[in-house]
């Protein structure tokens, strides 16, 4: 049939036209379009992967922060506990020391009181002794100021000697 036999002219022009279109579009249309499509896709993919990475990093950071917070909190409690312990210890120590000091002071005071008591007693004894001697001297002088008294005294003395 006529319809099934290709005409050379149309074949020829189609061939030339197609090759020309392919060459022109290939260079000036498909290449830039495909290149920038690829680039755009790569860009989008990169952006997504970067975003994912950043998200991961953010999560990591957040976890780190939380860890740090927890650690800090723990440290704070420990420190508080230690401080309390220290305070207690210091107070206790001070108390002990004060007690010891007080005891020491009390003992010293007692010792001093004793000493002073003794000294006072000694002084009183000495005073009394001196007073007694003075009294005795005065009495003796009075008694022995008269001849009668002297005689009586000699007699008494002599009596004592005789008695012995």
């Amino acid at each position, binding site marked *: 049939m006529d319809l099934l*036999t290709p*005409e050379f002219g149309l074949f020829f022009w189609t061939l030339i036209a197609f090759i020309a279109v392919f060459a022109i579009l290939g260079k000036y*249309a498909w290449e830039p379009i495909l290149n920038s499509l690829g680039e755009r896709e790569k860009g989008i993919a990169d952006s997504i992967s970067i975003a994912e990475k950043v998200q991961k990093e953010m999560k990591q950071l957040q976890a780190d922060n939380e860890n740090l917070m927890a650690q800090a909190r723990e440290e704070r409690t420990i420190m508080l506990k230690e401080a309390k312990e220290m305070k207690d210890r210091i107070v206790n120590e001070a108390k002990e020391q004060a007690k010891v000091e007080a005891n020491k002071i009390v003992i010293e005071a007692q010792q001093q009181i004793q000493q002073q008591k003794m000294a006072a007693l000694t002084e009183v004894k000495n005073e009394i002794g001196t007073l007694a001697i003075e009294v005795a001297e005065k009495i003796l002088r009075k008694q022995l100021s008269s001849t009668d008294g002297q005689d009586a005294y000699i007699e008494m003395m002599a009596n004592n000697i005789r008695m012995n």
Partner: protein
Amino acid sequence: MNYRRFLPFLILAFSLSISNFLFAQTNGNSTSTAGENLNATKIENKEEGKEEKKGINITELVFGHVSDSHSWHLFTIVKNDTKKEIPVAIPLPIIVYQPDKGFFFFLSNHFEEWQNVGGDSSFSNSYESNGTKFHLEKKMKEKVVAEDGKPVMDLSITKNTLSMLIGITLLLWVMLTAAKKYKIGTVAAPKGFQNFVEVVVVFIRDEVAKPNLGKKYLKFTPFLLTIFFFIWINNLLGLLPGGANFTGNIAVTACLALITFVVMMANSSKYFWSHLLNPPNVPFLVKCLLVLIEVMSLIIKPVALMIRLFANMLAGHIVILSVICMIFIFGMLNVFAGWGFVPVSLAFSIFMFMLELLVAAIQAFIFANLTAVFLGQAIEESHEHAADNHGSHTAIESNAHAIENKSK
């Protein structure tokens, strides 16, 4: 968003599987209806034509529309008083070459076909230059013949050639305009018309090139894109009223198939040839048969491409024309029947036109996809060798699956 973007292609991919089936039916119908029409007219012509010369030769009308021509015929004026038919047409340049006399350039109105009295289909008017006379032989197809009987090489810018030139001008304009917006290093979203171009380009790249061509798909994507857009835009131009049946011409599809074949051969791998000429693990006798079949398949592949596009587009044109011609066939029976059939015919031709719009895209896609499948087989380096018969189906199916997956 993905779903919306791929919805048209989902529909396209679905209709692919349906359309082949559907089209096989319409093909069958078209030939039968066209055949009936032709028979009907022939009978009517025999009965009425001789008496009144009123009837239309449907065969000539339909095939005159679908075949190539040396002038772009627009319409015909019939003078009431003389019953003279005066065709209104755009003359086109004729370029003929004769080996001994060189090139001849002249316009087709020298054939003065439009001053001819209608009816005689095999008339010719001649053009004379340098002592060589040419005339136009009009049978089913127009042919420039030298009167001295020597062979003529006809390189005329025919209706189809001009239509193609308009088509590629449009294509170049559209694509180069769209391509200007792509500057290297920008990640901006596409705007306006760029969107449309980009969707199709991405579709061809991801759904046609990538699944069929493997790693080297980017090397062949420009070729597939050119094939797809070239066929598509010419398919669409052919649908315009008064348009040429460019892609429904066997010379065109043969040319495209030849280009595909050459690209296939130029890029075929050693693995492909070794498997083709020496299939492993096959007994000797079977091997002989297999090699024969494989070598035949090498030729059959481009021939199938050629015939598929040619037949689909031609059939589409013939169906629409036949449906419209039915108005006049009924009109010849009875004026009221003719007017009565107008809405039916219009409705059916609008339906066919819509279908043809779809088919224009589908056939371009199928051509590109099968090209990719054949190319994929030829450049294959791995160990899997898909059977030729199932190649296209599996490719289309895998495309459909890919689209479905993406839309999800």
